[in-house]
């Protein structure tokens, strides 16, 4: 196991060098987060389908419990129970549109992970950096539990638990727990925990900050493992996942229409119904819920005792409990929507629940159709402060300060950008498939074969995977 320890030290040193300006030391934070003995226990696996590229190179790395799809190179890295999902990478000949330019992609894009330690992290989408179209790089980076690296090349960064960086190139940054950043390009920034920041320079700038102290009940991360409601929630359901990872042939617990896709590494509990064009990704958890036509549940989503009418996007890591969602409701990354059996949460059609929103109620609540919701909402008063009709929001043309939200720029452009993106996500997921056209992940991700790969079982290289090259 010596090699594994050496590799850990090497990664920590490299990340700390990058973060020296911010005086941020990752060592005490992640030193004992995942015991090395734990990192030797799990196999890694990769998917094979006729619809996705197959090209993997693993060198001098530990990949325990991690999943790979598409094209990916991992070197000198530790990946613990992470999902590296390369099913949206650009292809040779694609045109990348950026500020009026159409930039041709000269070779198939690859995810490159070097000198990084990713814990239960999702890597998905494609590089949105016009300077690095063919390489979605993640280097000298440490990310912790349930972080999302979504279309965001990263160099020399630390990501706290349940944080998300979306469509943003980041260099030498610290992203606090449960912070969400979508800002195009950032460097040398320390983003406080619970910051939700969406910026398109010169067009709009949205920032919400969770009230100090109140976020700690949900996620608290200082030294030792992350704590709080979010962690308790996933830990309570951990056992169900152990079964799906231990059993080789698993039978569907539920009828799946021919146009829908249910990943074999998802957990399906009784009384769940899956409609046409539904996508259920690996590590999703469904229980006593209905997913109407075109709805999706992405990685690390939990949908429990809930009803999704159709064309609902439940983005990576979102949780919906005891809730009824109208058609076309978008629930952003890592949102936590919790009604109660006797206090259901209803969200009206075409509403947008911003990424990293917490709705946690004890009395029934109705969010009107076409509403934008953000931040911490535990009662009607907080809903009034932290929401606005999409039509009203679209009218903002200077700036607005509402509770802990500061918005500046064009509300109309902000709403349009979100609506266009939601449409694109539904399209990519195959929600609009009609039997002939508009195939997406729901149709392409059916019948995936999974192969497993294993590390050295003992000795100095215990836990390290041998160099492995996998090609068609």
């Amino acid at each position, binding site marked *: 196991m010596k090699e594994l320890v050496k590799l850990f030290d090497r990664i920590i040193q490299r990340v700390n060098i990058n973060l020296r300006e911010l005086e941020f030391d990752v060592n005490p934070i992640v030193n004992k987060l995942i015991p090395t003995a734990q990192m030797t226990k799990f196999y890694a696996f990769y998917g094979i389908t006729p619809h996705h590229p197959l090209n993997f190179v693993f060198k001098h790395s530990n990949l325990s419990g991690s999943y790979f799809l598409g094209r990916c190179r991992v070197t000198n890295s530790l990946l613990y129970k992470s999902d590296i999902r390369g099913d949206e990478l650009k292809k040779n000949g694609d045109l990348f549109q950026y500020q009026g330019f159409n930039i041709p992609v000269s070779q198939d894009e690859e995810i490159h992970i070097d000198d990084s330690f990713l814990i239960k992290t999702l890597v998905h989408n494609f590089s949105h950096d016009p300077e690095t179209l063919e390489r979605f790089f993640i280097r000298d980076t440490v990310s912790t539990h349930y972080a999302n690296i979504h279309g965001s090349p990263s160099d020399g960064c630390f990501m706290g638990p349940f944080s998300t960086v979306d469509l943003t190139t980041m260099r030498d940054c610290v992203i606090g727990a449960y912070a969400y950043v979508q800002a195009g390009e950032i460097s040398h920034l320390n983003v406080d925990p619970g910051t939700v920041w969406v910026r398109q320079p010169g067009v709009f*700038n949205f920032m919400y900050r969770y009230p100090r102290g109140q976020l700690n009940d949900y996620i608290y991360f200082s030294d030792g493992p992350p704590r709080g409601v979010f962690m308790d929630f996933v830990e309570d359901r951990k056992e169900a996942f152990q079964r799906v990872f231990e059993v080789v042939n698993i039978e569907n617990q539920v009828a799946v229409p021919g146009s829908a896709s249910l990943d074999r590494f998802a957990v399906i509990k009784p009384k769940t119904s899956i409609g046409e064009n539904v996508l259920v990704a690996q590590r999703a958890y469904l229980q006593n819920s209905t997913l109407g036509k075109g709805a999706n549940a992405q990685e690390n989503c939990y949908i429990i005792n809930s009803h999704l009418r159709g064309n609902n996007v439940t983005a990576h890591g979102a949780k919906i409990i005891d809730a009824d969602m109208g058609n076309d409701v978008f629930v952003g990354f890592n949102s936590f929507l919790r009604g109660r059996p006797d206090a259901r949460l209803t969200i009206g059609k075409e509403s947008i629940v911003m990424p990293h929103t917490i709705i946690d109620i004890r009395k029934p609540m109705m969010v009107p159709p076409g509403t934008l919701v953000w931040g911490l909402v535990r009662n009607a008063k907080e809903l009034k402060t932290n929401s606005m009709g999409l039509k009203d929001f679209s009218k903002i043309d200077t700036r607005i300060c509402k509770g802990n939200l500061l918005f500046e720029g064009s509300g109309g452009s902000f709403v349009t950008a979100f609506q266009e993106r939601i449409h694109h996500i539904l399209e990519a997921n195959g929600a609009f498939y009609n039997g002939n056209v508009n195939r997406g992940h729901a149709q392409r991700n059916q019948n995936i074969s999974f192969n497993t790969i294993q590390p050295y079982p003992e000795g100095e290289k215990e836990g390290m995977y041998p160099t492995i090259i996998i090609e068609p």
Partner: protein
Amino acid sequence: MKCYLVKDLMVPISEYATVPEAATLFEAVLALEEAQEQYQQSRYSHRAVLILDKNKRVIGKLSQMDFLCALEPRDADLDQIRKFNQFGFTRKAVALQQEEYLKKSPPKLDVYSKAAKLKVTDFMQRPAEGEYVDENTSVDMTLHQLTAGSNLSLLVTRGKEIVGVLRLVDVFAAVFHAMKESETQLLDGTT
């Protein structure tokens, strides 16, 4: 135009407002008031207080802006709001958020009384490398130093000793008068 040297325009340290490092903000303001009353060389008033250590060496400067900043309410949330410009927000937006936050804060009736007792060293600015100038430097040379660093004043040195303060207002006045004199001569055809 007369070629001024720094020492021609500086305020000698003996005439400048100074306080020891143990002084409070209130003592610093009193020192400033006293210096203003005594110093009548020009119509421009004193705008800063120098902070001296026990060996009478200058260790910092408290400007009017530093003084006003000390009166501003401070807490972790406000500090966070003040960092918003890092995230691409305009000054107007930051001010709006700050105003909104302060509306919800309890009124601070005794803010002046509390601020008066604060230590001057907590708010003073320590002079940086580019804020010193030798007394024999020409004012023309010093102009660049003032503009490049956006400095309102420079500390004037003689060897290792600080002997005075060169203020932007005095440099401006000297340059302006020289320019006026030169233009007048041109118009009169006397050059």
